[in-house]
């Protein structure tokens, strides 16, 4: 990146493609032999299918799963929908005539994919228990223990929050769910490839993630499905029998091969990248101190390495973004919802006021971020905040916080 290109601190919205992923995707796009339909029985079809199976093994490898536990989808949103709607509806219909259990446990800090899937369940007659985080953005295993009921059909929680980066103790919750024989779905879109994630723990029935948060292409994701006991799922889509009947449609070879390589690369880089990125994040937080008064949304730890959510007293979010535009690419709230203007429900759940929320930015760091970029980004941010504060009404620093 030249000094002219904006500094990209929006990895949590989407990470740039790793050049090695681009290279293998190019190969797939340019090699005629690999462009057949992987469902076709002829030689080029089988060649494509065998590349897809290799990718499935790479994707599975990143979370310590066997390849046949992976169902490919169009992204984490679809994985999350398939897991939540699929598992809850299957449980409801398991005893015939919709008489199965209808209680579902989730939280107030889920990504919209999880939140809106659960809301749909409410419309379908399920009873939802929405766990409340503490002021630091944490959901505790004890809360899940208290929420479980004999008729709980599903627990669905995210591993790392996409706005604050705060991490939930999934291992403890998985143990609970295993003991109580409740299916647990984990939205791991923000943690896979950034923290060690292993589905070996028996309590995890379903786990969702996608390629574009870890250097792979947009438009492709995975749902892990425990093999034994295999959670029952009602598909969202029908036709064609691909992916064990759970997800029909022609498999996009180039996308899946890119996903596979991205997972392989993430796995081998994890031990070095995670601490490097964590150090960069704390360096950024320190370098922002001259913009005081400011605060951090969500506890610093436990967290994924790359996310820092900061609020700047007295700042108006839209003006701050325009001030930074073209120089720093960051999100106010989650990128997924930053097209809409409503304040982040996640930060609301942490108890932040709407004024504090609109004054907050999510800064997220990734594989290509350098210390020099961090320092330059901090200088830009401090200058921007200071400029906007120059003309602030008297008393605004206290009220907008």
């Amino acid at each position: 990146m030249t000094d002219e290109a904006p500094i990209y601190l929006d990895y949590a919205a989407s990470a740039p493609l790793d050049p090695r992923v681009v290279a293998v995707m190019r190969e797939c796009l340019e090699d005629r032999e690999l462009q057949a339909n992987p469902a076709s029985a002829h030689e080029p079809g089988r060649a494509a299918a065998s590349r897809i199976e290799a990718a499935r093994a790479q994707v599975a490898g990143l979370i310590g799963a066997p390849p046949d536990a992976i169902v490919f989808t169009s992204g984490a949103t679809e994985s999350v929908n398939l897991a939540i709607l699929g598992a809850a509806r299957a449980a409801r219909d398991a005893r015939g005539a919709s008489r199965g259990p209808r209680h579902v446990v989730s939280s107030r800090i889920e990504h919209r994919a999880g939140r809106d899937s659960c809301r749909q369940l409410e419309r379908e007659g399920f009873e939802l228990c929405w766990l409340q985080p503490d002021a630091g953005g944490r959901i505790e295993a004890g809360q899940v223990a208290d929420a479980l009921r004999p008729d709980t059909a599903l627990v669905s929680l995210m591993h790392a929050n996409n706005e604050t980066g705060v991490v939930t103790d999934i291992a403890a919750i998985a143990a609970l769910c295993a003991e109580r024989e409740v299916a647990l779905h984990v939205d791991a879109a923000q943690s896979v490839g950034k923290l060690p994630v292993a589905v070996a723990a028996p309590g995890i029935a379903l786990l969702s993630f996608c390629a574009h948060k870890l250097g792979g292409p947009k438009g492709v994701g995975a749902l892990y499905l425990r093999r034994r006991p295999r959670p029952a799922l009602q598909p969202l889509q029908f036709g064609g029998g691909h992916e064990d009947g759970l997800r029909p449609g022609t498999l996009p070879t180039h996308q899946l091969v890119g996903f596979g390589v991205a997972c392989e690369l993430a796995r081998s880089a994890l031990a070095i990248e995670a601490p490097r990125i964590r150090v960069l994040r704390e360096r950024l937080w320190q370098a922002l101190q001259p913009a005081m008064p400011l605060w951090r949304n969500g506890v610093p730890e436990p967290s994924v390495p790359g996310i820092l959510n900061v609020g700047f007293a007295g700042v108006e979010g839209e003006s701050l973004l325009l001030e930074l535009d073209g120089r720093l690419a960051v999100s106010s709230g989650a990128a997924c919802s930053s097209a809409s203007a409503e304040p982040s429900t996640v930060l609301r759940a942490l108890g932040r006021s709407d004024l504090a929320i609109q004054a907050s930015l999510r800064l997220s760091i990734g594989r290509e971020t350098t210390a020099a970029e961090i320092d330059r980004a901090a200088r830009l941010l401090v200058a921007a905040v200071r400029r906007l504060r120059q003309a602030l009404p008297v008393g605004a620093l206290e009220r907008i916080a």
Partner: protein
Amino acid sequence: MSADAPRYSTDVLDLFRRLPHRAPLAAGAGTVASGEALALERGAWVQFEARLDGGRVASCAFRAWGCPHTLAAAARACAAVEGLAIASAAAMPARQLAEELEVPRHKLGRMLVVEDAMHALIAHARALQSR
């Protein structure tokens, strides 16, 4: 979706970048009037102050918390009253601010905050003058 439509007019961008009429007022002779309006839930808080000299608004400045359109409108409103006789000065109407600056419809409430703050300023100025 209309990703290609510019989000801010050139005027707004220019005013936002320069923030002309930003408080504090330059030092000078005369009394200082002020006016304020705010609707934080709507996203705007504006304070105006003006130096009054010889029955006129000699200069006007703003402090504001708000989006780029709000800041630009505050600056524009200051320019509009400078030089006017206090007796006949009028706040730029929200609708006119919105039109000139191509403010999106959902932000009209913020323009009203700017207009209200200016009304308050002018009222204060008149009160000071009549004292």
